[in-house]
């Protein structure tokens, strides 16, 4: 325990010294997030400094081994670091699909060469990654993907199209599911490839969402050559990696919903906007919906906490992630609806020059996608019914 106390003190001191003041304010705009990558432009010196310092200690990925650019921290140490960061309200030094998604997959399935090549550059924010999973007409039936990779001796030749590729237009590399055996059953002919988005034949087209933003792209592959050594895991066994990542993604979406919308406490937000009388909100009927939601939200947060604690204690199953994804996203949508109700016509502005944050209307519209992306709510419920509840398959 003494070691952990020392670690706490040292961490606190280091953060005090090294976290720039500008990095201790809540993130409000899209540009407050530092994504890194070859062409990334920092919004201010504080962002650059903070990333440089954190990456220097390996603290962008605190639990990864030092040889892969990580901090080599134990889970206990990482927890302390997280707590200390939260204590001073520090922004993340780097947000990255490389950290959240590809990293864990490479650590589990990648060769030593892959790890050495890619992980340190992810940790330092040098390469920005995107994910090539969904395809047009596949929708929830992800495994029906058609993008093909033909074996051409020393390389694969990729042709096809992905859709819903997050920030493909801003990314340097892609981790991508491709069909390497078109004759095999649909889950058994898929492989997991990594390649450079600057390769000849790759093009992207942003998709404008109903919220007005364009975080996703259509991505086209036209005779793209990918060296064979960029295959992760075994040929035709990519579906296992995909499933691992999907589970991971579900947990992330379920959990990250928490911080997605403003007003961490809807009741307090409503009390501020609408006002109270004798200790209760002036709008009694809206209060009824808010308290119902807030209780569910509290129950959800406790369930996240329990899932984490159980996982630590060695329980934890992949199917729980379906439940968290389902509840978290449905609640997030409900939360957005209630925020809209609290804010009335003010929330329906499409542009609002007086407020640096994006208008609520756009956040509300964006929230509608929560229960679609990363596996729809319907798919999550199917998974729970089949894998957890063991209900019989339909015909």
């Amino acid at each position: 325990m003494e070691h952990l106390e020392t670690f706490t003190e040292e961490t606190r001191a280091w953060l005090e010294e090294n976290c720039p003041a500008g990095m201790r304010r809540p993130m409000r705009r899209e540009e407050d997030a530092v994504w890194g990558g070859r062409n990334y432009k920092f919004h201010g010196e504080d962002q650059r400094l903070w990333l440089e310092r954190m990456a220097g200690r390996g603290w962008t990925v605190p639990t990864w081994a030092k040889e892969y650019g990580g901090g080599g921290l134990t889970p206990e140490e990482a927890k302390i670091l997280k707590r200390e960061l939260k204590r001073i309200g520090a922004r993340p030094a780097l947000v990255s699909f490389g950290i959240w998604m590809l990293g864990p997959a490479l650590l589990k399935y990648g060769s030593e060469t892959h790890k050495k090549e890619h992980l340190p550059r992810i940790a330092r924010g040098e390469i920005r990654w995107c994910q090539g999973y969904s395809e047009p007409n596949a929708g929830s039936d992800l495994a029906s993907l058609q993008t093909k990779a033909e074996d051409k001796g020393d390389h694969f030749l990729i042709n096809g199209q992905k859709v819903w590729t997050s920030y493909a237009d801003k990314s340097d590399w892609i981790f991508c599911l491709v069909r390497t055996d078109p004759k095999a059953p649909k889950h058994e002919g898929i492989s997991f490839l990594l390649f450079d988005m600057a390769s000849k034949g790759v093009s992207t087209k942003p998709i404008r969402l109903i919220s007005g933003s364009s975080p996703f792209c259509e991505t086209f592959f036209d005779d793209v050559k990918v060296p064979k050594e960029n295959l992760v895991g075994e040929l035709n066994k990519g579906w296992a990696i995909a499933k691992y990542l999907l589970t991971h993604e579900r947990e992330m979406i379920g959990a990250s919903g928490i911080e997605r919308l403003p007003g961490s406490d809807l009741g307090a937000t409503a009390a501020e906007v609408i006002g109270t009388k004798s200790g209760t909100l002036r709008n009694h009927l809206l209060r009824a919906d808010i308290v119902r939601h807030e209780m569910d939200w509290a129950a959800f947060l406790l369930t996240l906490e329990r899932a984490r604690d159980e996982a630590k204690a060695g329980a934890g199953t992949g199917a729980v992630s379906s439940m968290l994804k389902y509840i978290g996203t449905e609640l997030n949508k409900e939360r957005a609806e209630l925020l809209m109700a609290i804010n009335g016509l003010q929330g329906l502005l499409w542009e609002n020059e007086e407020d640096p944050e994006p208008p609520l209307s756009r956040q509300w519209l964006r929230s509608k996608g929560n229960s679609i992306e990363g596996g729809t709510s319907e798919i999550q419920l199917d998974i729970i019914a089949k894998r957890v509840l063991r209900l019989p398959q339909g015909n």
Partner: protein
Amino acid sequence: MALVISQEHDLLRDAAKGFLAEHAPVSALRTLRDSDDPFGYDPALWQRMTEMGWAGILVPEKYGGLDFGIVGAGLLMEEMGRTLSASPFFSTAIMAATLLKEVGREAQKKRLLPQIAAGKAVVALALDEGRSHDPGGIKLAAKPSGNGFVLNGEKTFVLDGHLADQVIVAARTGGKAGTKSGLSLFLIETDRAGLEFRRRTMVDSRNVADITFAEVKVDGDQLMGKLDEAYEPLEKALDVGRACLSSEMLGTASEAFERTLEYLRERKQFGVPIGSFQVLQHRAAHLFSEIEMLRSVVLKTLLSLQASDASSSFLASLAKAKAAQVVGLATSEAIQMHGGIGMTDEFDIGFFIKRAKVASETYGDYYFHADRFARIKGY
């Protein structure tokens, strides 16, 4: 009063359907939005609507209108809800025409109603002053001065406010904010000194304006109806507006639902049409039931307002609250069932959820009307 649509009204609906499909489909709204149009509606289209008689649908014949009644106006709104057609129909042909008819001075009627019926004037109602609908909470002050009044204060989210020729302004001439007595209505030209308009861009791409009144002088004969007694006629006119908005929302819900059904029948996943999945079938069947319930409520409300029944105000709140629930469900389910494509701007369904939300909020949201419903019922 049978709860059925008369033949005469069926004809009106058919004509509207044909006209709107040709001249004002959803793509027209998209074009309007993407062209950053200064009006937020297409004046040429509005002229064509006027030629169909729509602008004068509530205007008495002696002032050049059709006097077709509220049921007809509601049916037009329902069809416009299906195509999301933007025009000053609601602000001018419904709200302003109703208020002028109810409490306008003869001179005001004579001057303005024929202009409205001819599509030559846009008249906006400047009512609320905050983020939520609250007719009793009006603070904008009209103080007597000479033979007239001086107005000071602010109005928010005034429908078609930035392009109106005239505004009907609800002002406080007596009583305290939060009370029903002491409200009065004034009819004011928008070029009068001291008025400042600020256009706000809303999520549904329609027009609203915030208006500042700084020492705005009006004559005594700009008063509409009786001094201090505007609350009741205002509520009556608002109920007409709420019923018509509910009808619009019924149209929006129906159209979003029908488009979704079409998608469910055609879109395949896992080798079968997704509409064969029992879960989506049940949710669609539930939504169908909800829309049918809303349809009954809207029709009853329109018929009741047309007959000037005493129960109209409770029905108007029922309609508006129920419409908010149903159109919210219909448009959310539309996006969810369309999946990713429903989230793209390229696809039209997003326009429906945007307009649905603004219409739900206008002149009282679900909570406002549920509360009013319960209060009228005594609990």
